[in-house]
């Protein structure tokens, strides 16, 4: 018995010391940053001859693609890219080809976090990234994105990133960023070449070489907005394209209601339903487009030349009364704003609504049958039904870490990825493996094309590792910039051209785009709220802005008598939050440069 007890004592002590040892032991290791790995540092030049293990790439290593024999670790905060990583990165043809040509062993890491990577980014930038990380990429459409203040603080206050301006000047691709008119205004002024930064720390990615945002190409368009059951439009003898104004839309809903259509289960149809993906406030900007006055994040300039939040003007009552009318008369589903995705899907598959609040042509319910056709698009407040585009844009952001060993090599690598050779590799993979050159242009092999049409992402990612326009390893799509596939490769994206597409499952998507063409109009500038940063009213006003959608929906459902008090209370709240200061600032900016804010009337 005593032996047993002794055993217990020992085992307990053992575990105790083990744990303690583990903790303290690791603590020491973790405290030291990457300094201790300096001896292994390889200098750029000697990498060519010095690396003996680079046997098969020996002679090619002499070309100017060679960067260094080293590892580059990239931390990804883009979930689309992080979720499309190869199982064994180093064994995919693309990674191997990168290694062969540039000497770089690329290693991609991903921490998804909870809310689309934003919280992971925020946490790690505030707590410090793992010492091994050389660069990071994250979402960043423009400087109004929530990621931006986090990145800016890391660049400006915490000095976490390396200044790449010196390397950029004589780089192969990124030198273009200095050219006037290459970068969109916002990217240039607010992200890459900020006045309050002493160098370049944040590289905005995916800026196209040529601006094609105003060109309508049916092969590449996805058409959002309301769709109507073809059967119902035919039966009522209505041309869906002809519905333009809120009044016409209302009359259509009434007609549908009066006709008494039934769905697949024999139940009465409700004329207007939520988004295909479930209830949402956003569908309003399609379905009540002509009444959405606050086009710039709820702000706009009124006819009197003054800037207002939409709640401050009586325009808002047009919208409220319209929605209330639809709700009260049973013309739109009560759960328009918060039905779950599953139930909305169920209802649409059973044809329970005549009109789908919002969907697009690349969703299976649209392309798999002839049942639904686009409605409108409806007019916006300016009275035309053109789609608004903000012109050339960018997405995703690259930052090279200050802690990276020899940041110049890291930069050179990302620069190389954006060259013609790099883009070819990133988008099409390796010659002979996934594409062949036909008349000087890359064309995907039949095998890859078949996998692409089947939607076999796993195969594309693991067996090739290239992006294939986003269907494969998305990382290689989002690190690129200066893209111009039409001029470089003769097609808009890998696999887009050549071959008969009639059996392609998306044939109908393209046909819809051909049959229901749309026009674009350019409205430059950022949303008004982009200019809130730094003002003393920022916090309170931001909270109020966040609450507005909900207050508005509350007004849709409230008793008639309460509507006004809800709106008045909110007007009050805006005043107290300091909206006047903000509006003054907006006015100043607008007067300086009217294209800075995307107002239109």
């Amino acid at each position, binding site marked *: 018995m005593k032996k*047993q*007890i002794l055993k*217990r*004592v020992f085992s*307990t002590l053992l*575990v105790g010391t083990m*744990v303690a040892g*583990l903790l303290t*032991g*690791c*603590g020491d*290791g*973790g*405290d030291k940053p990457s300094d201790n790995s300096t001896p292994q540092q390889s200098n750029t030049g000697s990498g060519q001859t010095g690396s003996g293990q680079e046997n098969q790439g020996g002679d090619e290593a002499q070309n100017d693609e060679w960067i260094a024999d080293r590892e580059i670790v990239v*931390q990804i905060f883009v*979930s*689309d890219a*992080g*979720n*499309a*990583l190869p*199982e064994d990165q180093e064994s995919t043809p693309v990674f191997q080809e990168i290694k062969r040509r540039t000497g770089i062993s690329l290693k991609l*890491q*991903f*921490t*998804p*976090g*909870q809310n689309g990577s934003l*919280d*992971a980014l925020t*946490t*790690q930038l*505030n*707590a*410090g990234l*793992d010492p091994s990380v050389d660069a990071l990429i994250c979402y960043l459409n423009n400087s109004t994105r929530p990621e931006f203040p986090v990145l800016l603080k890391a660049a400006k206050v915490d000095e976490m990133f390396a200044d790449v301006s010196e390397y950029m000047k004589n780089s192969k691709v990124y030198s273009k960023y200095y050219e006037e008119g290459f970068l969109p205004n916002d990217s240039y002024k607010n992200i890459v070449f900020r006045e309050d930064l002493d160098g370049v720390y944040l590289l905005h990615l995916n800026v196209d070489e040529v601006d094609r945002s105003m060109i309508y190409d049916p*092969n*590449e368009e*996805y058409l959002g907005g309301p769709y109507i059951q073809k059967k119902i439009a035919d039966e009522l003898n209505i041309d869906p394209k002809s519905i333009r104004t809120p009044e016409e839309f209302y009359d259509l809903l009434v007609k549908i209601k009066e006709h008494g259509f039934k769905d*697949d*289960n024999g139940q009465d149809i409700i004329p207007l339903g939520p988004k295909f*993906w479930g209830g949402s406030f956003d569908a309003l900007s399609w379905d009540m487009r002509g009444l959405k006055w606050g086009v710039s994040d709820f702000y706009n300039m009124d006819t009197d030349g003054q800037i207002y939040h939409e709640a401050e003007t009586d325009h808002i009552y047009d919208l409220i009364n319209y929605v209330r009318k639809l709700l009260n008369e049973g013309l739109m589903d009560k759960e328009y704003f918060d039905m779950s*995705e*599953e139930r909305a899907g169920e*209802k649409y*598959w059973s044809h329970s609504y005549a009109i789908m609040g919002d969907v697009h042509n*690349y*969703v299976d319910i649209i392309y798999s049958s002839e049942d639904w056709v686009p409605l409108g698009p409806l007019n916006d407040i300016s009275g035309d039904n053109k789609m608004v585009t903000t012109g050339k844009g960018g*997405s995703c952001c690259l930052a090279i870490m200050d802690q990276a060993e020899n940041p110049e090599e890291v930069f050179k690598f990302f620069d190389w990825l954006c060259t013609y050779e790099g883009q070819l590799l990133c988008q099409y993979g390796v010659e002979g493996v996934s594409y062949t050159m036909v008349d000087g242009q890359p064309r995907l092999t039949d095998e890859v094309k078949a996998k692409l*049409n*089947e*939607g076999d*992402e796993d195969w*594309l990612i693991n067996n090739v590792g290239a992006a294939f*326009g*986003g*269907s494969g390893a998305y990382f290689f799509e989002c690190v690129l910039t200066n893209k111009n596939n039409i001029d470089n490769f003769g097609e808009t994206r*890998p696999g887009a051209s050549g071959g008969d597409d009639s059996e392609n*499952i*998306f044939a109908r998507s393209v046909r819809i785009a051909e049959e229901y063409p749309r026009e674009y109009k350019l409205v430059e500038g950022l949303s008004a709220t982009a200019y809130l940063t730094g003002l003393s009213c920022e916090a309170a006003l931001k909270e109020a802005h966040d609450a507005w959608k909900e207050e508005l929906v509350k007004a849709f459902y409230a008793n008639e008598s309460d509507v006004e008090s809800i709106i008045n209370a909110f007007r009050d709240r805006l005043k107290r939050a300091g909206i006047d200061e903000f509006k003054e600032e907006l006015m100043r900016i607008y007067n300086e440069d009217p294209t800075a804010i995307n107002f239109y009337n």
Partner: protein
Amino acid sequence: MSKMRHLHTGIKVKRSLGERIIQVIIYLVLIAVCLLIVLPCLNVVALAFNDGKDAARGGVYFWPRMFTLENFQEVFKNKGIVRGYGITIARTVIGTFMSLLLLSLAAFALKEKQLPGRTFINFMITFTMLFGGGTVPTYIQYRRLGLLNNFWVYVIPGLFSVTYLMMMRTFFEGIPDSLEESAKLDGCGYFGIYARIMMPLSKPVIAVVGLYTAVGHWNDWFSGAFYMMDTKKWPVQTVLQQMLNKAMSQQQITSVAQAIASAGGVTSNALKMAAVVVTTVPILCVYPFIQKYFAQGTMIGAVKG
């Protein structure tokens, strides 16, 4: 003892009408509760085994209408799932075992009312339940301890829990002191009492804390998603979480190519349901083994004798 058994059964026969009514009421209430709970759960199972596109039309309630295993095939197509299972099982077994050992030792020590510093330690432990440093300082500390990107990040941060520690302590306190005293007289030290008296008598609380800890490990996807950069070391829940996020991101598609990539396959809802079944069934199977420890009363008398 045997006499008592007879008495016991004797009473059972002579159960009064009131007793029997209570018994019936209890059964009825429990059946009602079970139905309320099991029917929605059945719906999840039915959806998991039903063709997703068919289910999207509605009307699938408690039994699949178009039976298929496709959803499960889709789940297991991902190589990460099988590997994730391995990691989840490893962390659950290691984590639960270590937690139980360390928790019970600490609880046993803290049960001793005369231990100098006991109040202080108890208070300080409770304090951590109410205050925490937040994500950033925690992240910094984990990095300092070398836990980032390390398997032990699944085990070490969850080793102790205030609630479980207190549960165990309370249970230990309920065991009569007299047993301990007599063991001491027999020459047992504290480790002996811990191993020979406390542990055998505390099976119910060990079982329940073990179950809670194991399920906590099993369901945790957070530490994978936050502290593990190497996607190959993710537990199954993190892998599934990402798989579902990916399936659901269909509505945020921004390019035609992405639309092409995400087309086909099973629906995200069906996948979600299959994932629930896949992750719940294994841990459910553990329950019956633990259940027996809750059913039997302790045999304090037997130990005494």
